[in-house]
Each structure stands twice: as structure tokens, then as C-alpha cells.
């Protein structure tokens, strides 16, 4: 009796499966949730599949929803790997318990210590520098120095910024808090707000275009946005300035990945992660978006290299996550929208 019931149920399951997402566990397969955009990761997935035969399924979304989805799915999650941008997001993923530590000599060797989680929950795969862009016809490079200096009165009505809602700015302010302390940082952020020439922009590109059009003289962006602008308008009168060279170094962040806590294909996920840290993959990963490779043995693309070498802040990027909430609150208090 019970057995026939079970058979009926089996049949029912098959019918349900036909209409739902039932995900069939296969050996040669990986499932990736990625906040890095499809056109930046797909070439890598395709190459890996070609080389190893491992098929990669993926969905893209912002980090917040992806982490929430991982939390909700719990043990049932089909995801093996989470790829996202910004250490702030990676830290949050680990803090919400959706990642697991990975012990891998390859990764430890290829990825410098300050670009990965001290507990090996996630690993930076490309480095993104956030620094200043200025109008060459209105600003002398000698006028520029540190992020904090942009709060100086001399920049009154000459500064453009992107919204504080973007994690890139939250991470930048988080590291400034770590370096300068809370009080000093709040003064700095207030100074920025006072110096704004226009309401804050919703993305880096708009902020740079405002500088180019003469609405303001200087802004702060991730360098690859500057790279995109250069490709589109090679004769632009904008230039990069490496911030904090005489002090702690330019603020850098990472895009990176971690193996999910309940990964069904853990070994395969680790293998893929390790592959992403190898020179071939590193080159593609960084070049796709004009970023810097995380592995120091790999050279950046020609255009990126042409912006010159710079001293990068050696602070472990996880600070961006640990102080994220504090940074947001501070920016809110300072009136930075």
C-alpha cells in the first residue's frame, strides 16, 4: 500500500518537475550567482567550459538581492559560487553566512593577502582604483593631493560627486574612517558636500561628463569608467590624478568571489576559482573592464598601464565591509545624498 503510494508520488514529482525548476545534479556543472555583469564574465565562463567541459549556469543581479536569495535558499541553494563587486558586498555575504572558507595554496599564492578575506571566505579577482579625475584646462595637478583635501574651501563650487548610495563611495569613506578617524572624516565629508557644484550624480560617467562640460572641475571615479570615456572620446580634456600618493596611497577595492556555504559542487567551484586566479584568466578578467589584475604577476592592459603606476593603499579591503554601515550613517549625517 505504502509502496504504491510512493510510486504515485514519484510520478507526481516527475510531473511537478516538468513545470518547475527542479535542478538536476550533474557532475560536470557549476552554478554561479554573479553581480558582475554578464558581458564581463561570460567570455571567461565560455573559455572554461571549452577547456574543461564544465558547464556553467548563471544568473546576474545586484549583490543585495543575490545574497538575500542565497540566504533564503539555505541548504537548497543550487549556487556554488558568488561573484560580486566591491569588498563591502563580499564582506556582507560572508557576514550573512552564505560563504564558506576555502583553503587553497594556489589562491593564497596568486592573490595578495590584502585583497582577500583574512579567513579565506572570499578572494579578490580584479583591482579597481577609485581616484580623482580633473579638467586639465582649469586645474593644475599640483592643486590636488588627498581625498580629504577635496573638502578644502578652494574647491568650493568645483566638485562633483556620485551618490553616497553607491557601495564604491561607501567603501572609500569606510577606509578614510579607518585612516583618519570618525570625527575628522565627518568634517571631510561635510566639506565635500559644501563644495558640490551640482547635486550628486547617480553614476561615475555622469559625474565625469559634468567635469568635461565645465559644470565642475574635479570628481572621484573608478578608473575603468575613465577608460571607457577615453575610448569613446579620445581627445577629452580630462585626466586621472592618483590620490594620496604622499600619504597612504590611492584607495583600491576588488571584485571577487567566494564559494557558497552549501555548494553542491564545492571541489569544482574551488577549481574554477583557482583557475580565475591564473594568469590567462586574470588577464581576461581585468581587461574586460579595464581593471587591474589582482595577481601581481599579470600586467594590466596597455591603455590601463598608460595611466601610470601608483601607490595603492595596502589596507586589507575587508575594512570596506566592516565599516560600511558606519560610513553610510556618517554620510547621511553630513548630508551627502
Amino acid at each position, binding site marked *: 500500500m505504502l509502496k504504491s503510494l510512493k510510486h504515485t508520488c514519484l510520478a507526481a514529482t516527475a510531473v*511537478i518537475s516538468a513545470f518547475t525548476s527542479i535542478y538536476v545534479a550533474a557532475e560536470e556543472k557549476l552554478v554561479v550567482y554573479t553581480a558582475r555583469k554578464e558581458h564581463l564574465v561570460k567570455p571567461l565562463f565560455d573559455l572554461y567550459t571549452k577547456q574543461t567541459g564544465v558547464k556553467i549556469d*548563471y544568473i546576474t543581479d545586484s549583490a543585495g538581492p543575490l545574497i538575500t536569495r542565497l540566504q533564503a535558499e*539555505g*541548504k537548497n541553494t*543550487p549556487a556554488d559560487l558568488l561573484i560580486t563587486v566591491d569588498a563591502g558586498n563580499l564582506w556582507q555575504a560572508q557576514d550573512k553566512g552564505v560563504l564558506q572558507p576555502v583553503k587553497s595554496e594556489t589562491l593564497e599564492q596568486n592573490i595578495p593577502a590584502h585583497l582577500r578575506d583574512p579567513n579565506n571566505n572570499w578572494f579578490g579577482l580584479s583591482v579597481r582604483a577609485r581616484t580623482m579625475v580633473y579638467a586639465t584646462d582649469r586645474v593644475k595637478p599640483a592643486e590636488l593631493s588627498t581625498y580629504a583635501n577635496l573638502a578644502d574651501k578652494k574647491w568650493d563650487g568645483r566638485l562633483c560627486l556620485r551618490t553616497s548610495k553607491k557601495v564604491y563611495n561607501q567603501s572609500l569613506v569606510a577606509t578614510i574612517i579607518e585612516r583618519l578617524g570618525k570625527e575628522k572624516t565627518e568634517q571631510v565629508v561635510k566639506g565635500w558636500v559644501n563644495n558640490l557644484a*551640482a547635486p550628486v550624480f547617480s553614476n561615475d560617467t555622469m559625474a565625469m561628463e559634468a567635469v568635461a*562640460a565645465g559644470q565642475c572641475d574635479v570628481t572621484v571615479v573608478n578608473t575603468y569608467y575613465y577608460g571607457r570615456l577615453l575610448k569613446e572620446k579620445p581627445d577629452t580634456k580630462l585626466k586621472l590624478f592618483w590620490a594620496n600618493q604622499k600619504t597612504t596611497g590611492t584607495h583600491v577595492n576588488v571584485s571577487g568571489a567566494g564559494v557558497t556555504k552549501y555548494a553542491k559542487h564545492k571541489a569544482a567551484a574551488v577549481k574554477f576559482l583557482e583557475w580565475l586566479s591564473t594568469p590567462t584568466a586574470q588577464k581576461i578578467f581585468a581587461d574586460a573592464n579595464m581593471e587591474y589584475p589582482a595577481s601581481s604577476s599579470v600586467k594590466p592592459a596597455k591603455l590601463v598601464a598608460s595611466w601610470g603606476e601608483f601607490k595603492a593603499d595596502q589596507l586589507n579591503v575587508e575594512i570596506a565591509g566592516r565599516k560600511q554601515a558606519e560610513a553610510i550613517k556618517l554620510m547621511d549625517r553630513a548630508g551627502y545624498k
Partner: protein
Amino acid sequence: MTHHRFWFWLVCAVAIIVLLPITNLIISWSNFQTDIWLHLIETQLGQLLSNTFWLIFGVSIGVTGLGVGLAWLTAMCEFPGRRWLDWALMLPFAVPAYVMAFVFLGIFEFSGPIQTQLREWFGPGSYFPAIRSTGGVITVLSLVFYPYVYMLARSAFISQGRGLMDAARILGLTPWQAFFKVTLPMARPAIAAGLALALMETLADFGAVATFNYDTFTTAIYKAWYGFFNLQAAAQLATLLLLFVALAVFIEKNARGRARYNQDSQHLFHRYQLTGLLGIAASLFACLVVLIAFIIPITQLIIWVIKTGLTDVDNRFLSLVGHSLSLGAIAAVTTVTIALLLAIAQKQPNQRWLPKMINISTLGYALPGSVLAVGIMMGFSWLDNHIFAAWFNWMGEEPRQVLLGSLLALIVAYGIRFLAVAFGPVDSSLYNIKPSITEAARSLGANSKRIILHIYLPMMTPGVLTGALLVFVDVLKEMPATLLMRPFGWDTLAVRVYEMTSEGEWARAALPALTLVIVGLLPVILLMRRSNKY
């Protein structure tokens, strides 16, 4: 099972499914986020509330003014170009708010072509109103949401015919008095329904306000979620938003009161001839709206597409189109079927409490797509993790996901979100069936089943079609819920637009955005052709 029971359980089932995500949001209050709330109250809450208030206020005026004014012009008057302006005015409905927002910024920002040209002509000091302002956001949202009011008001005016207006005139009212005292009040339920949809869209909008960096209640929800990673606080904010909406729906229903607007729509009527300057003014006004709300944005998109070339057109792109179309179609059919059942349930005798439950079932429209999707996701993951996990354990298999990440879950999400859109036209087409028809059928011995199949359904076809097309276009445009809940490989055009705009790559977002608009045009034109047949 008796009839009453059947309808009762049906409505209950729908309400429960809709309430599932909302309950999840309400449960969030069990863990009050004092820290975040104190911070919000201290820093931003005042600004958020006033911003949201002005947005609602401005968009109400904008969509009512544009929608009713244009509807009256095209329905009641004859002027040069009326025939094509009639449906051209509906075209902006196919443009998603987030697309309109980034196109407008691209054109009107300080660094955009217009202001650059002005500076070239008049020097660097030339004044131009700031586009990233309350006024700018209101303009953009009014331009994309006025078609809701326009469409509903227009068919209300047409079905009224001119007879009433003429009667009012004969009784001594001036044309304006007749319009305000007779025509407008008669069309009030339709206008209110359109306005309610437009305002719910406004409250739920995230894409447009985020592009403008204009802080509203919705952006605060996202900030709590993406910035503080505090889903509880986000959910608590979302329930407050829901409270506002429930209040608005309640007020609207009460204001409508017992107003019935079933009318003989068979009046043969001739339109007022607007001649000379008046005709040209009417024509210019309507043209201007079409120009700003449709032609200019589309032209900008086309320019961007040409600039970036057609490099992104490949098989993958075609599959995006295919996915968008099929999701839209499946969701339209299921959602309208449910709306139809609800509407019929409401018409059953002795079901006084049903309208209230149905009101609850249409609340989903006002929730930001992401918030709603999170609620659904949590509900489904609970089922997956408990019910289905137990099932699989009993079967001796490894537990896996059944609902989450399935097509079914996504369709349910669309259904919950867009039930209000489908229910409006379906319900009002049923509303327009005079009670006397039902009574006559009953007195001739027809039972409920026969009445539904042979009287209601044929008479409701236009409304059902309208509902289906509206849902179809809305699903095409829908972004956050699709992003969060789509199964592997089910990327849509909206997903592609998101990927590009989130990086500020507007030129590359233009191709999927333009395709989205074009795909959405066909149903919109169908809609207008159909409504002309009144």
C-alpha cells in the same frame, strides 16, 4: 460544493497567495530595527516624506491634467490630425519609466546636447532649469504614466456620448460648466481608476528616481537593503508604504461611492469641430505631448543605437526578445484569468465581503517589484525548505528546490504584482453590464453558469483583452522582480537594460531599450484600435 462555497474558496485562495509575501513583510516588525529607525528619523525621514509627498502631488496633477485633457480633446473634439493623435498619445505607455529617465538625463543634463548648444550660443552663464530636480522627476513620471488616465478617461468619454453634454447645454449650462458638472463627474470612476494605477506605479518606481538620485520612500527601502544589508528594516519601511497605498485605495473607493456608470454607449455622436486657431492649438498641444513623451526619447535611443552599432544583435539578443515575449504572454493569460474569476465572484449574489478581499488582492501593484519579490521568495523558500524538503526526504532523495528559481514562481510574482492592472478593466467591463440584464436572464430561468458563459463573458471580451494587453506590456517592462526570480537562462530585454544602465552605459542600453519599446508598441496599438470600436 455549492456555488457560494466555490467563489468563496477561490477568492480566499487568491487573497492568501497575495497575502503571503505581504505577511512576510509584516512579520518583519517582530524584530524592530531601532538602530536604523533612529538613524532614519534623525537624518532623512523628513526629506523622504516631503519628497514622496511632492512627487505624488505633482504626478497626480500631471497625469490628470494631461490624461483627462487629452482624452477629452480626442474623444469629443475634431481637429487637424485627431485621427492619428488619438492612438499616438497612447504610445508613451510602451516606454518604461527607467528608460525615459535615462534618456531625459542624457538629453537635458548640463553636459547633454541641449544645454551644450545653448552655452555655445549664449555663453557659459546661460540659465536652464535643473533637470535633476523635483520638477524634473515629476515631468518624467507624468509623461510615462499619463496614458493610464488617458486611456480610461477616453473610453469613459466616448461611451458617454455627446447626448448628456447636449442635454446640459440645452438646460442652460456653458460648455465649461457642462464639462465640469456633467461630463467629468460621470467619468470620475474611470479617471480615479487610472489615477490610482499611475500613483501606485509612482510609489513603486525605483528605476527613474534612482537615476535622478531623488530620494523617496522606495529608495529608502533599497538603501536599507543594499546599503545596510538590513532586510528587516527594508521590510518595515515597505509595510509603511503599503499602509499609504491601502489608505489611498480606501479613499478612492469611498470617493467613488455608489457611483455607477453603466451607460448606453450606442449614442451616435459627432465631435465638436474645433476650427481655426482653436483647432491648431489643440493639434499643437497633442503633438507636443507626443513629441516630448515619445518621439524625442525614441530618437535619442535610435541615435545611441546607431552610435554603438548593431554589435550586440546576435542569437543571444533574439533569445532575450523571445523570453520577454513568452513571459509577457504567459503572465498576461494567467493574470487575466484570475482577474476574470475574481470579477465574476464579485458579481455573485450575497457576497458583500468579497470586494474587500479583492481590494487586498490588488495591493501588490503598489509594492516596489524587488520588495514584493523578496516577500514571495521568502514564502516559496519556506515551502521549499520545509514542505518539499520533507517530501524529498520521505522519497529518499536529496532535497532540492522546486519553487524557487522556477518559471512558476516568476509567473506567480507577476500575477501578484499586476493583478490590479488586469482587474481594473475586467471589473469595469463587468460593472458596465446593467443589473437589469442579469435580472432578466434570471427571470427567464438561466442559472449562474449560463449567465456567466453566455452573457458575461461575451460582453466582457473588450475588458479582458485590455487587461491582458496591459499586463503584457507591464511584464515586458518589469525589471526588479524578473532579475530576482527568473530561472537560469531566462534573461529578458529588461534584464539587459539593467545590466547596461547600472554601469551608466546608456548608449549600449539603448538597443534593448528600443527593442523593448517597439515590442510593447504592438499591443498598445491593438489596444487603441479596439477601444475605437466603442
